[in-house]
């Protein structure tokens, strides 16, 4: 759906980095690890929030 606002484990706010991360590492060619380092998402609990996320809003949009 939408990127979670905070990391489930530690509570750090991660949502604001998603659009950057998506543009650079998911749709772009950059190395995801390097992008996360650059964004300051250091702990692996926060990193998995970004790495494992899929935007589904566009898929469910027609149904409501």
């Amino acid at each position, binding site marked *: 759906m*939408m990127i979670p*606002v905070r990391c489930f484990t*530690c*509570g*750090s*706010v991660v*949502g*604001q980095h998603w659009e950057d991360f998506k543009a650079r590492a998911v749709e772009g060619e950059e190395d995801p690890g390097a992008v996360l380092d650059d964004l300051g998402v250091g702990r692996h609990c926060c990193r998995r929030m970004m790495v494992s996320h899929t935007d589904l*809003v566009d898929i469910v949009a027609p149904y409501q």
Partner: protein
Amino acid sequence: MSTEPNSVADAEYDVTFIERGPERARFLIRGITPAFANGIRRAMVADVPTMAIDTVRVVENSSVMFDEQIGLRLGLVPLSTPPGEFEVGESVTLSLDVSGPDTAYSGDLVSAEDLVQPTVDGVPIIDLKEDQRLEVEAEAVLGRGESHAKHQGGIAVGYRHLQRVEEVGDLDAYDAEESHVLRGVIEEDGELIATEEFDHDLRERYPGKELAVEDVPDAFVFHVETDGSMTVEELVSEAIGSLEARAAELREAVQL
């Protein structure tokens, strides 16, 4: 610099910053007992109150998310909370009105109170398509972390013992190959060195040496991060103040 444990009751504390930023810091406290260190840590996580959206009146929500999902996402947005300005339970009204096609961000929240503002503007709340609209009025309440994680000012708050590293001899060739991983901060002849500096591997710094590593008694390195609702310094001060207030209250109650 003496690192031996002093008699705790009249110990003078000694604080040294190792890493310092407004929302993330590491500092060493010498002369602090484990129970007191843990009391402060717990107070930072569960007792220092922060503002967070708690009640949402939905005027219009034609987005693909349910009202309560939107409510949760709004609740998790950190709001600036200057210490001492509000009482626990006091509330501030915020509103948000975004029409699609557009994305509603945390920065679109408009607060009725200058002191209480979203500290991060770029968190997407919901992506709105053509003809979708989100209009809400929200009530932010000052609450404690023990009631809900959204009121938790401290993030990943923890501490480790300061480690003292001493060279005690040379290793034979076979043992020298083994890595010796250590995380935290080490003390070498009174100098503080974060283990990041040698990639957390003591072999990088002391090649071929046999080492003695021990916890320094009553010396703890705290790692404190905040969600932005206040600075690290404010958070630590508030946590100490929370213990202090309770001790004063107990003393008064006993005297009666």
